[in-house]
């Protein structure tokens, strides 16, 4: 891991079973779609490495994380947990907010967001119902 290196944007197109992922060093991070990769930890490894490097660098004033995941398998659930864990740690000295975005009819997505809120009391997670 090269500390202090210039961060590049990372963008991954959505597939049938992975979300669109957009990681911008200007402080906007977004996950949109479904998540049930064949091997979740391998798939998300570049994302976790990018985030690790991002939080190790000089950060923009604030970071906004938009999570709009329609449904996900249990290993993605674990992965998001680990990711929020990393963000909670980084967020202690930095303004970071997670927007957990869900469709009003998607009760299970809302419940998943509520569970994350309960698990991360030092991380700001906003539940946002899509209008």
């Amino acid at each position, binding site marked *: 891991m090269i500390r202090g290196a210039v961060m590049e944007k990372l963008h991954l197109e959505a*597939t*049938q*079973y992975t979300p669109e992922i957009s990681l911008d060093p200007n402080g906007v991070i977004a996950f949109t779609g479904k998540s*049930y*990769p*064949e*091997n*979740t*930890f391998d798939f998300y490894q570049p994302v976790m490495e990018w985030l690790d490097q991002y939080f190790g660098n000089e950060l923009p004033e604030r970071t906004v994380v938009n999570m709009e995941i*329609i*449904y*996900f*398998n*249990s*290993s993605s*659930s*674990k*992965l998001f*947990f*680990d990711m929020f864990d990393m963000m909670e740690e980084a967020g202690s000295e930095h303004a970071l907010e997670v927007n957990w975005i869900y*469709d009003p*009819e*998607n*009760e*299970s*997505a809302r419940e998943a967001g509520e*569970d994350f809120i*309960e*698990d991360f009391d030092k991380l700001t997670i906003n539940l946002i119902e899509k209008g």
Partner: protein
Amino acid sequence: MDIKAIEKILEADGIVFLTYGGFITQSLIAGMTDALERESEKKDINQRLANNIFVIFIELSQNMMNYSKSRESAGEAFDPKGLIVVGKGESDSYYILSQNILDRSDRDKIQPKLEEIQRLDNEALKLRYRELRKSGRDSHGKGAGIGFYEIAKRCDRIQYEFIPIGDDKYYFQFKAIVK
């Protein structure tokens, strides 16, 4: 109970949306999930119920896929045929049923989890799920080790059976009923 017998039951058991028996791959799972999405749109199933069906289907089929991959890479003679069925049960309920062959050692790993799940009420199950997710146990394996808890959280009830077929092998039959 063999696969033929299951087919007979299914024929007598309401509307089947999807049934597949054979070697399971990720692209097949994605295709079948897509088919389920179309089916649920056509049937106007509400999104909460539909998402629960998709996630349970994905968990069970990925379980079978990962299991057969692990057996193949171990170089063991193994019958990878899995059976998975999604159908409509009684009074607006739906079911997801799976069957595959397991060794005794695998049964011994799965059975205690399922027994625990059967004992827990909804609230306790949610807490246990979050506790296991937090612990990071098994997190370097293929899954997170919380798949059955994920399924149980999303369904009304589960049923399962390990049927010995000799040579220390079992049919593992699992059914999740969602409402």
